[in-house]
Structure formats: C-alpha cells, structure tokens
C-alpha cells in the first residue's frame, strides 16, 4: 500500500438538536493524515471537538451526531461508507481506543482476565482457555507484576496506574494498526504518568502502531508526538511536525498556548495569558473563531473564516496572517 495509513479529508461532524433547529459544528472541515508507526497529537481545549473527532473515526458517535461530509480513508477504504457489521470488525481489532478514566472503562463485575480476553474471543473466536493465556501474556507486556495472579483479580484490587495499563492491554490485544488514546493519563500521578507514556511508546515500537494522542497537555505532545494538530472550536487551526510548530508556531492561538504554560526553570515570571474564554461550540463567533481573543486580529478576521494555508511543505495554518498575500 502506498498512501498513508489514515487519511481524513474535509471531515465534518455536527450535532443536531432534537428539533433540528440548532446545529453544533463539533468537527468542521478537518483534513489530517497519519502514517504507520507515527504519533499524532490532537490538542485542544474542552469543547474544541477533539473527542468528537476520535469518536467519528470509530463511528461511535451519540445519536444526535451526524457525519455531514468528508472521507476517512483507513488503509485505502472509506470508513464512513462501511456498513455497521464491517465497522464492528474494525473497532477494537484494527483501530482501538483508550479512554480517560480506567475506573469507568473497566467492568467491576468481571475479572481482569475476562476483560482482556474478551476482544480476542470476539474478534478471533479463540476459546476461553487460550484467550486467558494470551491475556496473561498481555499483562506481562504492559509490565504488570505477577500477571498469573493479577489475571484472576477484579479491577478494584488494582491501583489506578495498573488499571490504566490493563486498559492498554485490552487495546493492544488484537494487534490494532491505530491506537487512539483520549487523555490517557489525566487521572494518573506524575511519576505513574511517565511510566505509562513510556509503556505506550514501547508498545508502539514493538507493534509498529500508529498512535493518536488526544490531549490538552502540550507537554505530552512535546514528549510523545511526531505530528501535532491544534483544534479550536471544531476547526483544525494548525497542523504539522511537532518540532517545527513548537519552534515556529504560525497561528496566534498555538503561539499563545505555548507561551501561556509555566515552564520549569523560568520561575516567577509573569505568564502570557490568553484573554477571554473559549467559545461556546454551539455559537462560535463569526469569521475566525479565535478572533475575539486574538492579539493580532484584523478586520478581515471578524467576517471571513480563513481557509487552510500552507506555511511550509508540512505545516498548515488557518489564519489570514499565513495567507500568501499578507506577507
């Protein structure tokens, strides 16, 4: 196969209210691609549409959501056109997902072994005994001590970090091509977070996984990702290689975000804050959604939403400042 592993083209997902009167453009005209073995960070604040984008990928959207337009090519074929029964063979097997809270994503009534073995039994029809054996091996792969005992235990007997590793074991159980991690470490302590991120990176290397990190934490992106896509009010405002964007952000929002985080080392200097609030996703401002908070706002930004401009071969930005004529 020649193209990228995942190619999202002009994808839009909207939430429609019960009467059809209010439309929220949760994901609006997003174009992205991801190669095998690569790590993509999707960064955004709450309400920016990053989780909706992930749910769209797996077609696990709530009933009020509609995929309005666009294509999602996975290994060359469009996921949007696939019938539900084919999607079920992809979910958890070809594309897997890790959710934020491991206490919510594990069933308290089943043993760890049953839950790790479930996708193997469902997708591969493996009998229970050998699926359990695989589960024990998977626990070892996610570095759980004494996997032979842990496999028979229940989630409440494990610590938060261990539970999240179990969720990781479930996600890689069927050797997926893409692993989506939605804020996988927000409920973990700093040192446990570092352990978990290293584990994910090792799993990625050993399985040649493509990783999608959904996070609001720019530090995780700096540590883990090759590519980054910054979302704001449903749109992708900037995308490109992580180093390039951290060194030379083209969009004022990305720049402001990077400047607003305290860094270890330069203590007690005033932070550059972003004024105002993130917009209400159901009623974003006209024009560029960032314009009310933008330090470099121009007249044009208030009325016209900027299209995606190429800043370099690999970096795009949705800002009039990046328009070729503006230079």
């Amino acid at each position, binding site marked *: 196969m020649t193209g990228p592993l995942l190619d999202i083209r002009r994808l839009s997902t909207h939430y429609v209210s019960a009467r059809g009167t209010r439309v929220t453009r949760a994901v609006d005209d997003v174009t992205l691609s991801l190669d095998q073995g690569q790590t993509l960070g999707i960064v955004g*604040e*709450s309400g920016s549409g990053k989780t909706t984008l992930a749910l769209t990928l797996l077609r696990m959207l709530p009933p009020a959501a509609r995929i309005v337009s666009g294509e999602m090519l996975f290994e060359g074929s469009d996921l949007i056109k696939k019938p539900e029964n084919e999607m079920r063979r992809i979910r958890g097997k070809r594309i897997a997902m890790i959710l934020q809270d491991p206490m919510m994503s594990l069933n308290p009534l089943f043993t760890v072994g049953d839950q790790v073995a479930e996708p193997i039994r469902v997708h591969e029809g493996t009998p229970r005994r050998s699926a359990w054996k695989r589960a024990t091996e998977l626990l070892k792969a996610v570095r759980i001590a004494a996997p032979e005992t842990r496999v028979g235990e229940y989630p409440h007997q494990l610590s938060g970090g261990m539970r999240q590793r179990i969720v990781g074991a479930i996600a890689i159980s069927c050797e997926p091509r893409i692993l989506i991690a939605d804020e996988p470490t927000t409920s973990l*302590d*700093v*040192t*446990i*977070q*570092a*352990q978990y991120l*290293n584990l994910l990176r090792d799993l990625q290397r050993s399985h040649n996984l493509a990783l999608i990190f959904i996070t*609001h*934490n*720019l*530090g*995780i992106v*700096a*540590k883990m990702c090759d590519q980054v896509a910054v979302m704001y009010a449903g749109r992708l405002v900037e995308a490109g290689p*992580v*180093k390039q964007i*951290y060194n030379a952000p083209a969009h004022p929002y990305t720049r*402001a*975000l990077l400047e*607003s*985080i*305290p*860094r*270890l*080392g330069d*203590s*007690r*200097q*005033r*932070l*550059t*804050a*972003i*004024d105002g*609030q*993130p917009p209400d996703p159901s009623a974003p401002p006209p024009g560029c959604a960032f314009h009310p*908070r933008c330090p470099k706002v121009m007249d044009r930004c208030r009325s016209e939403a900027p299209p995606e401009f190429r800043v370099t071969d690999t970096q795009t930005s949705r800002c009039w400042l990046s328009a070729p004529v503006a230079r």
Partner: protein
Amino acid sequence: MAGPVLEAKNIVKHFPVKRGLLSREVAVVRAVDDISFSIDPGKTLGVVGESGCGKTTTAKMVLMLERPTGGIMRFEGQDLQALDGGSLRAYRRSVQAVFQDPYASLNPRMRVGSIIVEPLVTNESLASAEVRKRLLRLLDLVGLPERAADLFPHEFSGGQRQRIAIARALSLSPKVIVLDEPVSALDVSIRAQILNLLRDLQAQLGVSYLFIAHDLAAVAHMSHTIAVMYLGKIVEIGPAEIVAKSPKHPYTQALFSAALPSHPDERRDEIILAG
C-alpha cells in the same frame, strides 16, 4: 511583621483503622508524619506530591478541619490548639480556601453577589450599603464586571467561576489562602489568567498562599518555597528555584524528571520509579 504568619512544627496526623465488632483499633494510617514548615507574610509555600502523600490532610489541618494528632501549629505566634470561641472564629476568618472544582464549590442556587459576600454577612455586621461597596471592590479585584453579581454560577465559564471563588475567599481580607489545585480543572488557555491573577492579588494585598498542586511547573512558577511530600513526610523543602533546578532528594529528582517537557528538544534523563 517579623515572624512567619503560619508555622507548623512536627505536625503528625494519624487516622485509626478500626475493625471488628468493638471497633478495635488495629492500625494507624500515618497520613502526615512529623512535618514542619512556615509561611511568611505575602509569600507562597508550594506543596507537591502524589496522591496519598498527605498534602490534602495538611491543608485540612491548616484550615482547622482536622486536628493534628501531635505537634504545634502557630498562627502569628499563637498556638492553634489554644484557640477557642472568639479567637478561633478570628482564625477561621484569617484563613480561607479556594478549591479545585469551581463547578462543585459554588452553590448553584445563589446569585454570585450573595456567594461572594456570604462570609462577610455571616462574620461581620455591616450595613447593606457597605456590603455592596465591598462586593464591587471584590468583583473589581478579580476582574469580573459589576453585573456578574446578579447572575447565577451556571452563567459563567470555569475560569470565571474560579474568579468568583477567589473573590469569596478574599472577602474577609484573610492573611492566608489555601489553594488546593486551583487551576487543574480549568482549560489550558485559562490557567495562565488565574495564575497571573493570584500573583497580582498577592502583590497587591500581601496575602500568603499555601499552594497545593501536582503540576510541578505551576508550583515552581507560583511558589517562593517548595515542599515535596512523600508518604506523609516532607522529603525536601527549600527555596523554589533551588528545589526545582537542583533537587537533592532522590524522590524529588525522580518527580521532577518525570515532569513533562515544555519543548520537544528538551531532553531529561528520566528516572523511572518502579511501582
């Protein structure tokens, strides 16, 4: 004033673990185990540590929500154990708190104005014109418009709600404010606003902070002194720059090496703790 505003000496807090029919005490959890620290007027003590290390218990003891099992806590030189009646009420007025989740810490049925002045109304008998005057000053201090007073909490975003909580904490002109993870529930683009506001208020009002957070960079940014807690003990305490830049204790070193980089070129030698 010369001495520290708040001083803790060899503070211990044990929680008994009870079992069986007669609730016999079978063990104790040493939540806080012999810690000492002090906060000077107008300064910030940052406390970092992982969950279960005792930082919240420490905050509760400072707020007098828990009584220490042993040790001495002094506020402006006065032993807290000796306080009663009027002097205890005076202490509670001088020490206020801002909590992590501004969605849970504000009463949804009260208007913002009443929320902010509630401590004033219950603690001081003021004429309503005076209360109004103080309310407007508090709103101005935290950067909220005057009309915010007549609205309800649900009409505000997370960052604005945290401003409301800060205004309430300031209403009695306290000497110390306990900040328990004040920005971790907020959006990234809002955090810098609140951290800057807290620092401006400190410069303006000379209030001291006990700043508890797990975000090491934020603690290093906000604090004059940092205390690192592990299993109920302070393993390292010192000036913020020194603790953040050249930590001495192996646990502090591991903790700071586990902190996320702010730039992809920033490489740290990671010390991964087992377990």
